């Protein structure tokens, strides 16, 4: 019954997100916006631009570069930062590896996804950031569905699901103890479709890999993996060219592609409406166990 497409973006979601961003800027001394180059953090940048207009965005962006990003994402990041005149801090997972703080995973499923938590926590400590704004959405995953808008983390960045503060009406309590910080999720109540409709309404630019393009892929575990120098392959995994696009953008080693011809926003939205697979179904990092996300959150991941 709902195969009809909702093109309309629910305006209440933007008003709510802007309110949250303004509360963040007012209640904290050093907020930072966690930027991944994906559509959700691009949406956050737009919301921040609107929240403080005609003033500037009063906090910098922080990008944790795993070194395994899609080159298109990095190019896009640099373009966005330049065109909007934003401040950005970039921290590299490679540095954490060189410092011996984390160890590169091995084997064919090796990914730097889990490693970035350490780099992130170091960057938060170094920058003395007391609020980290992230683009996580509650519809993405069942542990995220339980998280507050102002989510308090301890000194080690850990999330304690059982000790969450009650959050009532739109009253946000950002008071924290020394050493704690808060993860702020302004688009908690947005769904994947809401984000796409917002990108469409606001005519936002997004990295080219969201649109259908030809690239080398391999098949593994029923998913299409982008072939790159970072992916450890076995002899029988032979790359071939295929027209694909990405529905979610993480690392090249943990993001699967979907076969698609959608090269316009309208086609992408129509494709999502018809999709039988959820957005994070293409995230290899979530498939490690049923509680993969909850465990990573406890460890200080977004």
């Amino acid at each position, binding site marked *: 019954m709902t195969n009809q497409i909702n093109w309309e973006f629910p305006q209440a979601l933007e008003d709510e997100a802007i309110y949250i961003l303004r509360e963040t800027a007012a209640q904290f001394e050093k907020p930072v916006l966690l930027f991944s180059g994906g559509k959700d953090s691009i949406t956050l940048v737009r919301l921040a631009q609107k929240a403080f207009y005609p003033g500037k965005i009063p906090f910098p962006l922080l990008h944790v570069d795993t070194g395994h990003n899609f080159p298109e994402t990095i190019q896009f990041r640099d373009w966005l930062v330049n065109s909007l005149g934003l401040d950005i801090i970039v921290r590299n997972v490679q540095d954490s590896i060189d410092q011996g703080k984390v160890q590169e995973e091995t084997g064919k499923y090796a990914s730097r996804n889990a490693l970035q938590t350490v780099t992130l926590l170091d960057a938060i400590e170094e920058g003395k950031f007391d609020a980290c704004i992230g683009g996580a959405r509650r519809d993405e995953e069942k542990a995220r569905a339980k998280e507050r808008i102002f989510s308090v983390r301890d000194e080690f960045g850990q999330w304690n699901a059982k000790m969450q503060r009650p959050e*009532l*009406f739109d009253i946000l309590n950002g008071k924290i103890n020394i050493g704690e910080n808060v993860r702020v999720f302004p688009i908690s109540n947005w769904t994947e479709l809401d984000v796409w409709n917002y990108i469409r309404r606001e005519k936002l630019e997004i990295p080219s890999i969201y649109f259908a393009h030809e690239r080398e892929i391999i098949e593994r575990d029923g998913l299409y993996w982008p072939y790159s120098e970072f992916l450890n392959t076995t002899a029988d995994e032979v790359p071939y060219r295929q027209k694909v696009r990405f529905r979610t953008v993480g690392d090249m080693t943990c993001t699967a592609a979907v076969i698609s011809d959608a090269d316009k926003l309208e086609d992408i939205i129509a494709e999502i409406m018809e999709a039988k697979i959820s957005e994070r179904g293409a995230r290899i990092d979530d498939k490690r166990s049923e509680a993969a996300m909850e465990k990573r959150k406890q460890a200080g991941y977004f």
Partner: protein
Amino acid sequence: MEVLRIATSGSVDDGKSTLIGRLLYDTNSIPQDKMEALHAASKRKGLDFTDLSLLTDGLVAEREQGITIDVAHIYFSTPTRKYIIADTPGHVEYTRNMVTGASNAQVSLILIDARKGIVEQTYRHFFIASLLRIPYLVVCVNKMDLVEYSEARFNQIVEEFQQLLQNASFKAQDVAFIPVSSLYGENVASANGAIDWYKGPTLLDYLEGVQFDHADSVHPARFPIQSVIRPRTTEYHDFRGFAGKVASGHFSVGDEVISLPSGQKSRIKTIEQFEKQLETAHARESVVITLEDEIDSSRGNMLVKTNEQPKQLKEISAQICWMDAQPLTAGKTYLLQHGVNRVKAKVQQINYVIDVTSYQQTTGKTTMGLNDIGKITLKTASPVLADPYSVNPANGAFILIDEFNNTTVAVGFVE
């Protein structure tokens, strides 16, 4: 497109998760991979059916114990509306989570097992829906298949519930009753003929028909200032705007406004929403307001229309729900946050604690424990610009924060 927020509550056994699962399933809102993960997880638990509660119980501790501990947010949409369900636990020890989940809801959905009728949780759920003055209440009498779809049984439960309504503090609530079988999908998203004596809407039809409160004009205009925007750039050298979200009512260009608590008056020069200029800002819209005159206003102050000013409260009577393991103590000082404004507040007196099933009030208490609901009197260090919750809910609630550990310990409703 409008967003409708629904609060649900109940225990594992009353079929709530199945009902929500059914709503999602029948509106094509569960993708195939999530459905497959549910099948697999149910099998691992040794179940011979797909346990839809695994969809909403997102935490390891919840799945282990088969109970809902915290509020989960579930999303689905139809061609006309986006829905947000706040699914909350029903046990007495999680009353605070029920209040949390219900605080943003326009619709409260109460589930009753047709075999059991009204139980203790029904009272608590109804009490909270009434305390929060949720405009719509829909009572789903579930598991009708287990009482042979009996009209008499349904009517009996409706009658029992009517008794409850007589005690309600909030009389204007719109109440509806629907007989459903979530297991067979009867009257959830469609009527399949098993309950032919029922002529009313299905649950989904009912939700699609809920009217939104657009009566901005009946509530006084309130604009709590979140921050002052002063770019000091060449282009906007003299720009000075007040950023905030309209709490209630509406403001238009040219309106005479007064900034509280200072009492300085001016007129609205512009209302801005990013690069757009608006004529009017309605309730819940995030905007920037500029004034004709340079007046001294900052975060925590409030712009209101000169002819509808709130009282400046230094003594507050309020119903509260206590949410912390450490009890509330008369005589202790907390931080009171009303909207974006924080002031110190001292608990003068605990007037009474109320039993949510019998409505009996116990007076003479000096402490309130976790999940207790009651009435207290507070004295604040500076005036709070609140309306009575019963007159203007959007400007009538507050939270209390513990000054020492910074956690949110209570929610209050100004009387």
